[in-house]
């Protein structure tokens, strides 16, 4: 018995590393997602990080984002392969792809071609700049798209270059929007009986990660342009601090944005006898006015930070977090990949699942919410062609002989 909220639906997923996450999200919710890849393997299998094991299938990117899917290796550029793909499309509810605009059309697999074999099919295209427009065919990489969407520029360390997130994010934002768009089109189909084309632009998906600051210029907010040369840097100390055994995050809150949190921190420091009498009388809810009036200087704030730094450095992270929760201080542990996997909080909530690939176990984040019945058990990312015979049998009633013939012709693997 299939489980998960989307268990009645079939997804044909032709995407590579640019779109894998969309199908994964639908698969996590129980849809039957068939990952179609070239017979030589998806290019996403060559995206790191990799295990230390020198096996050919050692991409952990693939492990992560092709999980919750079955695998079909199919040469869709061979006429027999294209024909087979159209037969599968006739049986699918959704088709997801992430080709450069024009590639699917040249294969005779544009939305209009697919709609002929299945008018109910929802076709999701995940592309760099969208399916049309003057930049649709621009050369791109994740970094340049992050730049085009406006998310790169704001992350600055002093006057150095803008910094990206070192784990590439751009295509994930686009693919996640692809999953949303697919389901929105599904609700339209419930009314019309017809599928449609869902067009995702990674550039505009990435713009979500700017907190709407991309709109500044359109309404004349000067923050839409770089500050003129010589503009003094805003007062901004680091919000990360060393504890006795790790690092914690806490912005030095002031006024309506966190002033109460800083007051609570100073109350704790006074109770511990580790405050500095110079700062005991400060009310952080009103401190912004003092800064504006000039009675508080950046040097004073540096001294405050030094006092806090000493206080934190004497205490283990666990104590800081425990007291922060108790006292409503806006502080949390700075998590890494290691501390996340060890976290009692996330493991206790059931976030992680271990799946078993041929080459070994894989620990992956799975259920992003607690919602009884919503998620299907996570299945491991497929090997090349691992489910080819099974899928062709279930979807198209092909028998073993027919599958063997296709394999002999190298149409499938």
């Amino acid at each position: 018995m299939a489980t998960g909220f989307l268990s009645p639906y079939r997804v044909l997923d032709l995407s590579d590393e640019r779109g894998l996450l969309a199908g994964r999200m639908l698969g996590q919710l129980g849809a039957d997602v068939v990952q179609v890849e070239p017979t030589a393997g998806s290019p996403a299998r060559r995206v790191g990080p990799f295990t230390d094991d020198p096996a050919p299938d050692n991409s952990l990117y693939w492990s992560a984002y092709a999980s919750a899917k079955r695998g079909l290796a199919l040469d869709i550029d061979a006429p027999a392969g294209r024909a087979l793909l159209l037969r599968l499309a006739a049986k699918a509810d959704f088709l997801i792809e992430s080709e450069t605009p024009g590639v699917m059309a040249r294969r005779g697999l544009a939305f209009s071609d697919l709609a002929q074999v299945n008018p109910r099919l929802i076709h999701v295209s995940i592309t760099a700049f969208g399916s049309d427009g003057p930049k649709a065919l621009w050369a791109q990489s994740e970094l340049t798209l992050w730049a085009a969407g406006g998310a790169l520029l704001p992350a600055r360390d002093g006057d150095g270059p803008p910094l990206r997130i070192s784990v590439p994010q751009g295509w994930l934002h686009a693919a996640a929007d692809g999953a949303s768009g697919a389901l929105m089109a599904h609700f339209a189909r419930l009314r019309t009986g017809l599928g449609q084309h869902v067009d995702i632009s990674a550039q505009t998906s990435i713009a979500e990660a700017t907190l709407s600051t991309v709109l500044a210029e359109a309404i004349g907010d000067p923050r839409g342009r770089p500050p003129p040369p010589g503009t003094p840097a805003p007062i901004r100390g680091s919000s990360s601090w060393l504890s006795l055994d790790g690092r914690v995050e806490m912005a030095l809150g002031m006024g309506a944005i966190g002033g109460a949190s800083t007051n609570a921190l100073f109350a704790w420091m006074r109770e511990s006898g580790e405050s500095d009498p110079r700062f005991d009388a400060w009310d952080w809810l009103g401190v912004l006015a003092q800064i504006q009036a000039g009675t508080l200087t950046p040097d004073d704030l540096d001294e405050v930070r030094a006092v806090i730094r000493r206080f934190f450095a004497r205490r283990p992270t666990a104590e800081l977090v425990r007291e922060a929760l108790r006292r409503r201080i806006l502080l949390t542990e700075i998590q890494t990949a290691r501390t996340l996997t060890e976290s009692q909080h996330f493991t206790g909530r059931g976030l992680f699942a271990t799946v078993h690939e041929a080459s070994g176990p894989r620990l992956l984040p799975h259920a992003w919410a607690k919602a009884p019945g919503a998620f299907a058990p996570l299945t491991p990312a497929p090997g090349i062609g691992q489910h080819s015979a099974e899928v062709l049998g279930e979807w198209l009633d092909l028998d073993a002989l027919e599958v063997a013939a296709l394999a002999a012709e190298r149409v499938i693997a």
Partner: protein
Amino acid sequence: MTIRPLEGLKVLELAWVVAGPRVGRALADYGATVVRVDTAARTDPARVVGPFPDGAVDYAHSALWDNCNAGKLGLALDLTRPEARQVVLDLARWADVVTESYASGQLDKWGLAYGALSAVNPGLIMLSSCLMGQDGPLSRTAGFGNVGAAASGFQVQVGREGAEPIGPAGPYTDFVAPRFSLVLLLAALDHRRRTGEGMYIDAAQAEAGIQFLAPQIADNAATGRVAEAMGDRDAHFAPHGVFACAGHEAWLAVAATSDAQWTALARLVGGEALAADPRLKTLAGRKAHEDEVEAAVAAWARGVPAPAAEAALQALGVPAHVAATSQDFCADPQIAARGHLILQPEPRGGVAVVEASRFRLSATPARLDRSAPAIGRDTAEILRDFAGYDEATIAALAEAGVLR
């Protein structure tokens, strides 16, 4: 008359700031009736941060608020008032979906947790979206976006190699979480359509964020490695960086994603000698001499205005794009061609500018029926038409100061 995918869907939104309201915005884009609860008693931070028209701080005209709440109806209701509880229950009876994003436990204090709401409407789907989820040892974690980024593993992913990380700009999980909440909510609606079952969804913004680090989680478990910030470099490509161009604060992102792209780039920035340098023909060679490779690009970029540098590289098929300011983004011909910026006339004069839907549906496109609400813009109509209140009841609530 275009068919709208979610026509007739009724949503009560008790969410605030960004992560929750962005879900409601997508529902409104596609035809749902979304009642956004807001109150003068507690200013939504989305109204505080802007951007603002001409840069003048004005909580009534924050573009972030507009972008999160366009298309919704506005109900002014002070949830801290005991009388507000019955209003929420009456609207929960009307609604198909209730969303909320308060700290865990807050709704329960007001007597408005899922149990109370589902008692009046068993088919209700309720989506809670707080930072760490409703239960677990860290469920009470409070904080702004920097806390979410740290709690989900992103703080350490932004920084210069070997330097103290600076974390992402902005509340990163607020950008990731709505995508996951929306997909789950739509799946839950389809499940309810088939089964009639309502349900409670306890979404944690951090758990959505961690999905975007799934390969790094798997890597740590398999190899013990801990992913760290490495500036703008990438293990798969070189050069891969952001370079200062001629002029003030003009930055260009450049990536050579193949050896052929490197050869073309090298010929442009360093002539035949660089393009032919046998040490740099392969990715491994360029990684081994990455400082030298980047220095060559940097020296060239310094003398060229960013748009010209971008055009020169694109002409060679080398991925390049200016690190867009808002000015660049709003003037981008691609953004214009996609119709991404939507101008909405404001009832009180002027225009609001919001972004279009993040997915474009060919047959049933998104549409905004109204601008984002001022506090309480639609209170009377909502209470009359959806809660079924008569004028006297509404007047009494207003008199008591509940509808503010």
